[in-house]
């Protein structure tokens, strides 16, 4: 049996050394990388394709949820946290495994066992909903992260013009660029601030700050003209949502 390949992500060296010590006698487990921040974790997962990521929630650069947002589809995750009420509630709701610091070697072994079974069954993954539900209310993300290979683009939410659905992807338009992210438009909608972003069409979410004017171009059918001249279709329900937001 091949050993499970693990990436450990925690910003504290001591915390990583503890995991290392706990696992040093397990022959069926191999630590393939140790990361001290979120960017390193994303890079390690993209490049090494581990079976499992031990992921601390509080980390510099990208926190655990952002790492999950970027690579959660590719690997199994066991979360680690010292104390994080909202995260723990979300883990419990979605039956996601987590370790509370300080944890014992036995507790880690249990979590690994469960993960091993999941991997053997080919199950993976951690629900996308965790990314928003695990955070404390009022700490809405003000940036969108998009992975391009092992690089990560950070887009401040205010710089997004609009978001467009494209098959399995969502395309973010910002400063003349198009950046693709593998998610649904509905997921994008939950992440973006509803006071600024509105779903104007089945396939479009608009940053209302970019709206120049609305045109009626057929009966019951409108088009949004953006400041840069872009025309976007507005559906009937999208029109009423837009009206509700900008009055």
């Amino acid at each position, binding site marked *: 049996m091949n050993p499970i390949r693990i990436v450990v992500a925690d910003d*504290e*060296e*001591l915390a990583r050394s503890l995991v290392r010590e706990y696992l040093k006698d397990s022959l069926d487990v191999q630590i393939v990388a140790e990361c001290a921040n979120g960017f390193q974790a994303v890079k390690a997962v993209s490049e090494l394709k581990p079976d499992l990521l031990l992921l601390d929630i509080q980390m*510099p650069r990208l926190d655990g949820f952002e790492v999950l947002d970027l690579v959660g589809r590719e690997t199994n995750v066991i979360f680690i946290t010292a*104390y994080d009420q909202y995260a723990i509630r979300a883990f419990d709701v979605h039956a996601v495994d987590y370790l509370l610091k300080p944890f014992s070697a036995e507790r880690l072994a249990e979590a690994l066992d469960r993960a091993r079974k999941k991997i053997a069954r080919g199950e993976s993954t951690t629900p996308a909903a965790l990314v928003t539900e695990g955070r404390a209310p009022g700490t809405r993300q003000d940036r969108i992260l998009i992975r391009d290979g092992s690089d990560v683009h950070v887009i401040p939410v205010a710089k997004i013009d609009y978001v467009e659905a494209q098959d399995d992807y969502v395309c973010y338009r910002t400063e003349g660029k198009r950046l693709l992210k593998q998610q649904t438009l509905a997921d994008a909608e939950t992440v973006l601030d509803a006071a600024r972003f509105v779903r104007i069409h089945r396939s479009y979410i608009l940053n209302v700050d970019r709206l120049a004017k609305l045109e009626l171009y057929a009966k019951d059918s409108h088009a949004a003209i953006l400041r840069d001249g872009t025309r976007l279709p507005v559906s009937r329900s999208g029109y009423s949502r837009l009206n509700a937001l900008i009055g």
Partner: protein
Amino acid sequence: VHPLLENRQRLAFYLIAWLPVAAILTIILRRDPARWLETLLLAPPMAAIYAFMCMSAWYVCLIAPIRGSSLARSLGTLAAAAALSSAVWILLGEIWAVALDPWMTTSGLTERYSAQGATIFAIGILLFLLAAAAHYILIAVDQHREAEKRTLEMQVLAREAELKALRAQIDPHFLFNSLNSISALTVSDPQGARRMCLLLADFLRSSLVLGAKKEIPVSDELRLVESFLDIEKVRYGKRLSIIRNVDPNCHGCLVPPLLIQPLVENAIRHGIAPLVEGGTIRMDVQREGTVLEIILENPTEPSGEGLAKDGAGVGLENVRSRLSKLFANEAFVGVSQDNSRFQVRLRFPCIQFGETR
């Protein structure tokens, strides 16, 4: 509600205590030669009625407490109440005797009863006073029990408040991460693990002791800050460095406890923790004449890249409200931020121990 009526057990005891009274009354009223039938029809019912009448002593006890200045008036009230109730009692006895008289085989019950009037009146007064004494004791016992319960409740509340304060002071993240560090050190560096335990105990104890006080000298607060930093140094290693700039003239100034330590904690949590390479925190404690100035500065992530960090806001609000409670509008709390540094500045009067404000 009358304390005897709200508790069946007490009421039963009270009524049983009246059985000997009924017996004594029967013996006194039996006359010579003994007329047992009429005495038994007369004396026990009278005792029963009086048992209930004497329960009214409770109200008298309430309005006439035996305490210091009003003692004489209370005794007067008590005597009047005893005389009145006894008078009512012999009157009721008289009515009962008159009612019974025609049914008796030997006539003259009413006259015989009346002849005993003075004795019964005296007994009535005595019984009422006894009942009053019993009620005083009952009230005292109840009050004592109530006070005891209240003390206990107060203790529980105080303990809860203490715990709540402790929870508010000590960030659970800090506590659990420190325990995790100890767990990690146990094997690789047992000496270090022990040292960390001692540091943590030291910090927790000082937080508890200082947190319970209203004001403490700056020097005590700074010691707490140092013991906090010692622990954080173990966790963050060389990512955390600190520059201190403390004027010894400030050591005696009084500050609310745990004023500076949470600011240092925030500086690490929001400044150092999110930075891959860590950084330097700067702590200035200076004095300009009678004004104490405390400045804490931490590096931040270059703007645009970081998440908006709230949470610092709540801590600062707390500092602001505590300072304004002590110094009203003489306290100043300011925040400034540029691309790479975040700074909190506190200014308030330096008042030393023994000075009045």
